[in-house]
């Protein structure tokens, strides 16, 4: 077993190392999207933090059957960034 399904299983089981692994693998994409959309590094850090903490808090909200973890994280980052740009 490997990849996103394994990471997802370990997150559900409460393994914080799995979140660290997900962060190491995908944070540059999450942060990168957030920086490009918000054009603000402070907002981008908040978005990155919120996206990864949400994955940890509600690990079942990511369903590996429906797509990649990176895609899920980036789409959440996109949404969070858009909201921040709108709200300011």
């Amino acid at each position: 077993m490997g990849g996103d399904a394994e990471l997802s299983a370990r997150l559900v089981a409460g393994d914080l190392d799995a979140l660290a692994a997900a962060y190491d693998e995908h944070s540059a994409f999450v942060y990168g999207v957030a920086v490009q959309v918000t054009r603000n590094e402070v907002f981008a850090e908040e978005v990155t933090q919120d996206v990864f903490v949400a994955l940890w808090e509600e690990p079942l909200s990511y369903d590996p059957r429906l797509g990649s973890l990176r895609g899920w994280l980036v789409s959440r980052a996109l949404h969070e960034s858009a909201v921040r740009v709108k709200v300011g």
Partner: protein
Amino acid sequence: MTDSYLYNGQSADDHVGSCPDCSAAITLLDQPDPAAVPPARLRESVLSKARRRRAPAEVGVAEVAVPYAEQVALMDELLAELSVRQWNSPTARHGTVRGMIEHLAANDAPVAWFLGVRAPEPDPAYRRWREQAGSLLQRVSASTGALLGAEVELAGATPARGSLRHALIQRTFETWTHADDVRRQTGRPPEAPPGDHVRMIAEFGLAMLPRAVRGPRRDVSVTFVLTGPGGGTWTVPLSSASDRVAVLLAADMVDFCRLLANRWKPGCFPYAAEGDPALAREVVRAAATLGCD
């Protein structure tokens, strides 16, 4: 993203102007590689905030929760791809694949119930099993290590009780066994969990073995030499007054777990034994009764 502009008469350009998600997505279209290295301190901030929001599983809890979570994820992948015909295809046990998953969910239920999970009864088999297993895992990962010693009902043909730790190892074992049943049903090769997970399953079976051995009381032990990833040597006393090793039985670790699940028939199980051959046969027969069907 809202797609109301598709039917409210608004043009796409007007919509994008007022929709933050679409504006953000279009911004990215011209920039195919959005990767940017975040500040190094952000990693610790994320992990620290995560730890405050949801405590990580204690080490002893993670030791049994992670193997179960992995088998649940593998089973989920297999079930998600099944066609209606495959769901209804006849199986050697439990009628059909659907019947087998209903059986698995029913065997998970006492552990889920113990942890406070109430799966909705009328749900289709797949959804019921999936939601129940996911909730069970979330509950157990948030519980203290002390709870692992609490006694719960174990699955199996003979009523038995055991610790929550043993019950979770048994859930991993049964989920793996039925995942291999689904693989066989759909023409895929069987798969085995990592060595340390298989080892926990074998140790669970060896602990249950003495009560399954039939015949006169024997004050002897059996030494198992199980080979392959996770393998090792275990000496199992068949009574509290055991004074010597009567049989040494050598077999493949994964095959032994499949024997426990009764996926190897005792008469066909490949093993080598030194010592009392009749006792070796009885031990192999007894091992094959420790599954969850």
